């Protein structure tokens, strides 16, 4: 066990955990931030996507000991009132079905738009390829990312 001071959503959070613990479980079990989802545990599905600085990363493969001073943003901290352009577009398009993968989808999409504010259709689909949606919301995801790009 070791103590880590983590910068999450603009706040400093202190946790006592084994350094090998993935950020996914630090968030969910130790900080009660359950918006970041467990889907596969091997970085194949994207449900656990968070931002590490400005990059979309799979938190199931990010040991807490590797975070250091880097800033983590989770779905809970993406915006103050759920009004990030990507979140708004998600609601406008009514993207979710079961909703479970959507936090990860939104985190991937918002990281994409930060780096590339005007992505092409192909760039959107390719960027979203690491996030599986079993309900099949893919066409609406593409539409919502496009809408968010147009609105930001």
């Amino acid at each position: 066990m070791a103590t880590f001071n983590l910068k999450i959503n603009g706040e400093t959070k202190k946790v006592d955990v084994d350094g090998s613990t993935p950020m996914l479980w630090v968030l969910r079990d130790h900080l009660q931030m359950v918006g970041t989802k467990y889907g596969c545990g091997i970085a194949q599905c994207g449900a656990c996507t968070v931002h590490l600085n400005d990059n979309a990363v799979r938190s199931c493969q990010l040991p807490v000991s590797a975070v250091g001073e880097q800033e983590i943003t989770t779905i809970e901290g993406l915006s103050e009132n759920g009004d990030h352009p990507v979140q708004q577009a998600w609601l406008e398009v009514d993207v979710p079905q079961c909703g479970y993968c959507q936090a990860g989808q939104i985190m991937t999409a918002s990281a994409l738009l930060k780096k590339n504010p005007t992505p092409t259709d192909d760039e959107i689909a390719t960027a979203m390829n690491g996030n599986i949606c079993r309900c099949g919301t893919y066409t609406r995801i593409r539409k919502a990312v496009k809408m968010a790009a147009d609105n930001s």
Partner: protein
Amino acid sequence: MSIVKTKVGRRAFIRNTSLASGGLVIGFSWLNSCKPKEAAKIVAMEMPKEWFQINGFLKIGDNGVVTIMSPNPEIGQNVKTAMPMIVAEELDTAWKNVLVEQAPLNTDIFTRQLAGGSQSIRQGWEGLRMAGATARTMLKQAAADAWQVAINEIQTSEGVVSHTASGKSATYGELASAAAKLEVPEEVSLKETSDFTIIGTDKKNVDGHQIVTGQSLFGLDIQKEGMLIAMVTQPPAFGMKFKAIDSSKAESMPGIKAIFPITVYPEGIKKQWSDGGAVPEMVAIVGESTWQCMQAKKALDITWEQAEKAEDTAYHNRELDNLLNTKPASPARADGNVEAAFKNAAKIVESTYSAPFLAHNTMEPMNFYAHVTPEKAELLGPIQTPEYLELTLAEVLEMPLEKIDIMMTRMGGGFGRRLYGSFGVEAAMISKKMNAPIKLVYTREDDMAQGTYRPSYKIRYKAGLDEEGNLIAWHVRGAGTNDDLVFENRFPAGAVDNYLAEKLSLSTNVTTGAWRAPRSNFIAGAEQAFIDEVAEAAGKDPIAFRLELFDRAISKPVGDTEKNDYDPERYAGVLKLVKEKSNWQIGDNRGVAAYYCHNSYVAQVLDVTMNGDTPKVGTVHCAVDCGIVINPLSAKNQIEGGIIDGIGHATFSELTFKEGEPQQHNFDRYRLMRNTEAPEKIETYFVDNGIAPTGLGEPSLPPVQGALANALYKATGRRYYQQPFITDKPPLVG
């Protein structure tokens, strides 16, 4: 306006008057602790000071805000929005004044609290309308009593009761207190469908804000004071069972509380159908955190023993092939004489289709919260069949039903997997043993390898055509693992003079069960691909060929017409609609298919191009007849989801077995469709016919596999017979 007796689900309308002034009628206060504190933010309305319980489905606040309970489990089929819309419609309140809550399991109030068979709306329709209409009648009566006027002179609109002659009006909030004290009326009037103002309009998902802001909604998100995490290790292969364990190393790992073998289903226990995939004995790991339990689980040294045959995919396929060559003792249906007809046929077409086992792979792995004490059992989690879980819990916990409380969370997908709730029983038994609240969590590997899978299937079709290209004989013989596959009374039964349907089942120890659109999820694609081949052999346009068959089923149906399980006019209707909307013409890289299941009719046209060996679907046109569409926005979402699901699984997915062990344990080896592989565009068209609503969650999936196979033929010159298509290497035709 139609007058109906309030007998359906009347128990739901009988108030418990002691609860009439505020408070929830159903005491699940412990659920409130997991409600997100931000929830109030989304409520852009003043909360009432007092609530009045009108009936089991709804309560009205003194300011006119209405809370409507959504009775059925929500798995992504969006009933949590649609079912309350139906209540709100007949209540005649404005949708913006409605709050929705998930109802707990309560068999005294609600009927069929089950997510399955695309039946929530169809079977809930009458009771939901009555719940709203009963409340509206009581509000009108309260006004009539107060104003001393006749109730039939009173109107309602958007939460306001008014009396034109006297100019009096009052809001539902003002009348709720008096209405809650009235007797439940014996009969109520329902709205004409033409008067609907909520049903048929686009309404956003009521949980949308919580979903996009990552609030606690799902079973896996549950956090409770003193709660421990539990995991289980089940036999690694079908046919094996637990023998012994050395847990000494794992027990000393950080955060681990206990490791023990557990008999979840004691011998002689009466099981429900929902216990279908249950493993009786397994190893439980209980600890402080999920990660710690995962590590300890890996360190376990468990000895399993072979109890039954260890089966391979090659064995299943060989045995299914044998079944296709076996004449069953009696046919499922026989009209005319197929043997004689084949002898006289000018042309005969014969093809065999197959599909592998599939895992459900809900994005949220199986999990359940349980707190079992000697006094009571509280369970909370994602379950499609809470009623049946409760019955089994009463058996294994030896506890009366009234001491068992089950609450459903929003589910991260169901697709049939959560019909089989043995994980809920496991959670309860582990909690009982630990005498502590626990949350059982399956890893993805547990989830994929301990499934209740879509069976593997093989089916052979043979069709005979006369000189003019008319279908004169049809023979289908289907076989599946633990499933006999064929719906003998569906199309083209009734449309062909000589018809023979035979079905056989291969018994296997791999657990199988319902997977989104059971049986239809394979047979529709096979049948619709075969019809395409037959139409080509007949030299006819594939839509025209199908319409000829429907004409026959309409004008001169074959066999016992009572048995024919479809309405050929509605079937033909969706085909004609999709033909028109897609500007159908032969010669494009396009395929067509139509199918009927879950009481709804779907026809699709799609086009495809090849990107190397990978098909890429362009536009899918989809015509749907599901009767009245409650919420067109989410209805389109259901159709789109089913289409993507169907194309994805037919193209990419399979679960294979070696010595009883699934060979895919996670998404690195189990391929699911990804964003770039999804269709470019889906256009959905609903038939507007005012018929009572039918299924939507499943019907768009089955036919699309046939439309895809038919489009692939146009694009590649190859007929795809074996799913997943990505691994099939069919020869060029001709």
